[in-house]
């Protein structure tokens, strides 16, 4: 039996693609290597009695149109946007909290600088405007540039209009900012180190660059696509952890008729005469299919699953040149009690991302270490306490804290990610946070470290990068995953990509999967 479509990988993007295809009436089978679908979106018992999202805090932002389209709410998905976005304790004992409400945030900023507080609303408005332009770019299959043809012209025209809609001055401003470093952009606006550190941290999220590197202003914009206007660095959390998102997506996909097979690792994408005819599993089983859609990252798909003989060496070279460079580790801390921050956070502030990034220089120095292959001695931290939202993740009265640590590069120079390196990392996290919440030192019951290396080994993520490749200017839109192949297709006929390694990239749960499904449906003439 030849199947219509096989989706490799049951992570968020794979499931979204499957759900969209199944909804359109196409029979689809998802093959997931692990025992449960979800990929990175999995909630596991990381330490006895403590459950957590293994790879970190969030799968990124789920765009409302995907949630609506797939009716994820009806499937039990509950999304929570905490009122506090960022809680950033400062070395001087104060703390800066960014709220989703810009007025409240401005009041907060006024304690540091009246002038910055005055500028805050205008900044958030510009950020939101620019993010909306990106949102339009992200909703479409990237047009071919410069060899535009067919519907590319309509796409380009639409995007051009969108850009013009900003007005003359803001349009240029958008182009200018997109090319800048987040430090320069923020320096244009603000004077307060605490504020620039807290906001600028969003410009280096999961990229091996510092805030002074060009292109980091774009990263900040990227992480505001789809988010509520006025809120800066807000988060969308899934009640019950990311596992709940995976469950909802699985249920919805199944409901539309998709078949989801777990514990079915794919060994090879079978190619004959330049066209895929199906996949071979690790067990040796062959599954014939007309089309294969891979949600694995581009390098793993093209250089791991497709036999090399079928590919042009230039294409392989381009795939191998994609920069992954995982830079973030996660430290899970089991806590006997909540941390007491000396800066006395306001009610609800600890539901934010507790951020250690007191200045742009702090972030830059953290990056300096990583440039030479070291772990940041003073890392940029982003901690969450998911038990504040869902106490069931830990034993009664106990808490769980997940801390994203950047920079913890995949490629360590003159070292490996061994037990000692992990312990050192956990020590430095506890020490750093302990500066602001002294009781942390004694309240840690257990620690669990997940390095980029672990992500690669456990989830098949090349170099441990959850975004399947850095979101840098040379690796986005028509360049993602590689130039000339940004339309979810590959040089192998019938083989498509739908993971975060494709446009619009990582941090936007399901957006690449949705776009890939659209492209496939167009090809099928079903849309």
């Amino acid at each position, binding site marked *: 039996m030849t199947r219509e479509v096989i989706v490799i990988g049951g992570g968020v993007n794979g499931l979204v693609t499957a759900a969209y295809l199944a909804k359109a009436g196409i029979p689809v089978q998802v093959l997931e290597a692990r025992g449960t679908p979800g990929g990175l979106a999995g909630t596991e018992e990381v330490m006895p009695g403590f459950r957590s999202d293994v790879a970190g805090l969030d799968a990124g932002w789920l765009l409302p149109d995907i949630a609506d389209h797939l009716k994820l709410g009806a499937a039990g998905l509950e999304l929570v946007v905490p009122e506090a976005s960022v809680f950033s304790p400062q070395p001087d004992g104060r703390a800066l909290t960014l709220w989703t409400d810009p007025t409240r945030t401005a009041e907060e900023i006024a304690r540091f600088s009246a002038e910055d507080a005055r500028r805050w609303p205008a900044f958030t408005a510009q950020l939101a405007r620019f993010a909306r332009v990106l949102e339009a770019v992200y909703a479409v299959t990237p047009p*071919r*540039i*410069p*060899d535009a043809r067919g519907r590319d012209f309509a796409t380009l025209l639409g995007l051009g209009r969108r850009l*013009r809609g900003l007005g*003359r*001055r803001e*349009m*240029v*401003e958008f*182009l*200018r*900012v997109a*090319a*800048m470093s987040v430090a*320069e952009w923020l320096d*244009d606006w603000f004077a307060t180190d605490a504020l620039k550190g807290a906001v600028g941290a969003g410009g280096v999220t999961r990229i091996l*660059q510092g805030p*002074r*590197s*060009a*292109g980091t202003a774009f990263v900040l914009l990227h992480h505001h696509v789809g988010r509520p206007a006025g809120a800066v660095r807000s988060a969308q959390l899934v009640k019950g952890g990311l596992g709940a998102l995976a469950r909802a997506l699985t249920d919805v996909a199944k409901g539309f008729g998709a078949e989801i097979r777990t514990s079915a690792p794919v060994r090879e994408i079978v190619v004959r005469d330049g066209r895929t005819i199906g996949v071979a599993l690790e067990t040796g089983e062959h599954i014939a299919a007309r089309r294969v859609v891979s949600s694995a990252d581009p390098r793993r798909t093209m250089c791991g699953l497709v036999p090399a003989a079928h590919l042009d060496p230039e294409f392989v070279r381009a795939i191998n*040149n994609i*920069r992954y460079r995982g830079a973030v580790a996660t430290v899970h801390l089991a806590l006997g009690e909540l941390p007491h921050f000396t800066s006395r956070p306001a009610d609800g502030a600890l539901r934010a991302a507790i951020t250690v990034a007191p200045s742009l*220089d702090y972030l*830059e120095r953290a990056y*300096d270490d990583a*440039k*030479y292959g070291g772990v940041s001695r003073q890392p940029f931290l982003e901690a969450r306490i998911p038990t504040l939202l869902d106490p069931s993740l830990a034993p009664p009265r106990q808490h769980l804290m997940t801390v994203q640590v950047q920079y913890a590069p995949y490629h360590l120079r003159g070292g490996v990610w061994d037990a000692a390196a992990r312990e050192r990392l956990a020590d430095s996290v506890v020490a750093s946070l302990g500066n602001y919440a002294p009781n942390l030192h004694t309240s840690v019951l257990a620690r669990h470290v997940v390095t980029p290396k672990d992500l690669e080994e456990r989830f098949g993520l090349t170099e441990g990068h959850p975004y399947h490749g850095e979101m*840098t*200017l*040379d690796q986005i839109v*028509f*360049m993602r995953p590689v*130039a*000339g192949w940004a339309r979810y297709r590959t040089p192998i006929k019938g083989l498509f990509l739908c993971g975060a390694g494709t446009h619009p990239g990582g941090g936007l749960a399901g957006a690449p999967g949705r776009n890939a499904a659209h492209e496939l449906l167009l090809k099928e003439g079903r849309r």
Partner: protein
Amino acid sequence: MAQTWDAIIIGGGHNGLVTAAYLARAGRRVLVLERRYRVGGAAVSEEIYPGFKFSVFSYVVSLLRPEIIRDLDLPRHGLEILPLESTVTPMDNGDYLAVWGDPDKTRREIYRHSPRDAEAMVEFGRLMHHMAQAVKPILGMIPPDPTSLSPRDLLGLLKLGRHFRSLGPEHVHALYKLMTMSSADYLDEWYETDVLKATKSASGIIGTFLGPRSPGTAYVLLHHYMGEIDGSFRAWGFAKGGTGAISESIAGAARRFGVEIRTDAPVTRVLLKRGRAMGVVLENGEELRARTVVSSLDPHRTFLELVGEPELPEDFVSDIRRYKFRGSSGKVNLALDELPNFTCMPGVGPHLRGAISVSPSVDYLERAYDDAKYGEFSRHPYMDVIIPSMIDPHMAPPGKHVMSIFVQYAPYNITGGWTDAKREAFGDTVVDTLARYAPNLKQAILHRQVITPADIERITGLTEGNIFQGELALHQLFFLRPAPRWAKYRTPIRRLYQCGSGTHPGGGIMGASGRLAALRILGDGR
């Protein structure tokens, strides 16, 4: 009432002189006003020490547009460019990496370090050649404003679109990568030899406040590949008589077309009447009138000093204010009693007629940048060293030599500010670092001139000592240089134009800004 000029050019640097020459060539009566005692701006040769002539600031040439050389017949006015034959990078293990004028010799040398890189070099060279060809027409075009719907701008955009289409996807994508990547990442895609990547990426950091791992530097790398001498790409040269000879030759051409040049004539402000430029006021109070005023000074000087904020739209002022200079380079000029003897290549050889690059590894350059990032000059700086007297013996007395050392990074905003003591410490660092590779250097020094970005600013007037009149960062190029909507040599002040490196395409002794400004002025019927 004094006479009225068709055009007054403020500043006698190479761009100002090019504009003047082109305008005069078209029959305009032109006056150039230069603040210093001689023309040239940052392209001057001066005898700082008796018998020794230095290209005090800018020291090599490759970007000077061939059409300018042709149009102004510069060779007739004394321009002669002598090729720099090689680049040699001494390595810390006593070895070296050399790139010679002869491609076969270079290939053999690179092969010694890595056969793979020797192979890659051929393809890389070909791609860079294509990229430079792709960018050339853009350098020669007045940037269209993408926000404008005027027929002229739309036509410009259409032309640009056609140009990109004609290049084909492969080259456009390669160009896009060059525009957005760091030179280190870009070179990683091609090469494996660290010292080779370092030496190549060094040209990506010149004049910027960025390290080789900073995105955007790959473009600057290309900027330095675009040099063109006698049609051969990536050929750097040295002007006979020093860099000042270039300025003198352009001034000569300008004079032949009837341009009057006044030195020691500092302009203090642009004379305005009802928002229009009427002429200029000199420091001595003298008022000079002109139908058109053109400033070759950088955007800060032109708008914030000569025009003044109250005369300008608020948005424009804030755009000019945030335009980044961030000077990052210094210069050390040495008069030498004898030639330096490099340990890696002892004795006198062809390597002394080329450039010596102190760029042993990418990390070395990056660490040099780290120091500057936090407000110090590099403890181990990048240096580009040439010995002009080996190419043009008239630069020094017989048997003696001059050495020109371009140094990075020396931040303009150094912690505590630049003092005499700090300048000397900087000079010591430079000499000490170089002496590690050529131990006889210290005893050979007869005279030392150390130039910090603060000195560059003081002497030439370049804001923050930035040698390009503003960083060549992605967000300060093309239609954004120096400010959106005003990247076409015009200014918000009617009859006032700009023609310096702070306009597209900017940077280096290229003259393209000066030429395009002149074309725009003539096109406006002025």
